[in-house]
């Protein structure tokens, strides 16, 4: 697939998108915080990657390469939105890029695609528990009630998932660019 992408063969972009599109989207969404803008950034990322395909090093991890392009595309959109007039201030969400102009935390951006890729390696039933624990802040008991599964099952799945994530993510602060 990577050689095909480098040669810009038909079908190679679609294959790359299916493999890495979610990683790219996660990076973009982390910067922009909005679904529509994140999708714009994904689109621009793949266009930029396609244009630069002949400079792509097939020995390098394409996820890191695409994450770098995505980060730049998302930051460009973030800056564009920060300049965009957004109507009455009272109508604008407090986290809208038009009113929040602090630059995104680049360290955390690098962590995003590592974490997203690690999550994607988990079995769905374990990923669901990690999500409920971290995104929704639920306890094991609350998860057990919500999913209708035994508390012991929740604990064992959570244990396995977190060990797996801990093993996969020993290098979160390595920058991609």
């Amino acid at each position, binding site marked *: 697939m990577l050689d095909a992408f480098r040669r810009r063969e038909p079908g190679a972009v679609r294959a790359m998108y299916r493999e890495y599109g979610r990683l790219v989207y*996660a990076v973009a969404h982390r910067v922009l915080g909005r679904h529509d803008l994140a999708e714009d950034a994904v689109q621009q990322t793949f266009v930029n990657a*396609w244009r630069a395909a*002949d400079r792509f090093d097939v020995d390098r991890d394409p996820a890191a390469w695409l994450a770098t392009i995505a980060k730049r595309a998302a930051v460009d959109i973030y800056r564009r939105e920060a300049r965009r007039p957004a109507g009455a201030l009272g109508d604008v969400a407090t986290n809208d890029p038009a009113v929040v102009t602090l630059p995104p935390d680049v360290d955390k951006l690098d962590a995003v695609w590592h974490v997203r890729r690690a999550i994607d390696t988990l079995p769905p039933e374990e990923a669901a528990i990690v999500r409920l624990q971290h995104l929704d802040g639920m306890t094991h008991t609350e998860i057990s009630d919500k999913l209708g599964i035994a508390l012991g099952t929740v604990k064992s799945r959570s244990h396995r998932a977190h060990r797996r*994530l801990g093993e996969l993510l020993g290098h979160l602060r390595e920058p991609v660019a």
Partner: protein
Amino acid sequence: MNERRTNEELEAMFAGDRAGALEPEEVDELALLADVLADPSMWTEPGAGLEDTVMQAVADAEPDAGASPEVRAAVARRASPPRWRRWAFSAAGIAAAIAVVLGVVVATEGGSSPDFNAQLSASALAPGARASATITRNNAGFRVTLDAHGLAALPAGEYYEAWLKNAAGTLVPIGTFSSSDGRITLWSGVSPKDFPTLTVTIEATDNNQASSGRKVLVGAVHSG
């Protein structure tokens, strides 16, 4: 969103037997990991239509960008005249470019930067659609460039129509089009300052010129 967990809790969660024996930088990494896991970005999926949108965007990218390096090099050689010719043509070229730019500036009364812009959201009738618009005033009225994606091709007898609406609900039609994945140029005879809502509806060829009310896109217009 969850409450912040203590480092001890995170170590127990991720490190198992090594909990309590981690290096300070490893503890920092766990805190970062927990922070990222609590971010909705980790758990949000792109839309199902994005794949095709990306494919279309790549296909629409500059034609030479999609060519192989050999083809692009050949094109560059063809496009690049000998140096003496470049020098000879440069003065005339600069003069012509200045004339064109001046002409455009005069014609558009203030240049090509948009006077208004809008982000349009999709309705339940076209959940995968999205669009943005830039509106530029010139001598003819207001040129509306709608960059729309994800609007499906309609069956025979139906078409899309764009409107500007004022606070009183008065609608002014600004153009019709069929399916879209790209830019559409529309024209308005009224100012978006007075008609600040941009909508797109599905209409039928039924000799009824009023809006059907079947909105697929809607957004507020802002001064640019």
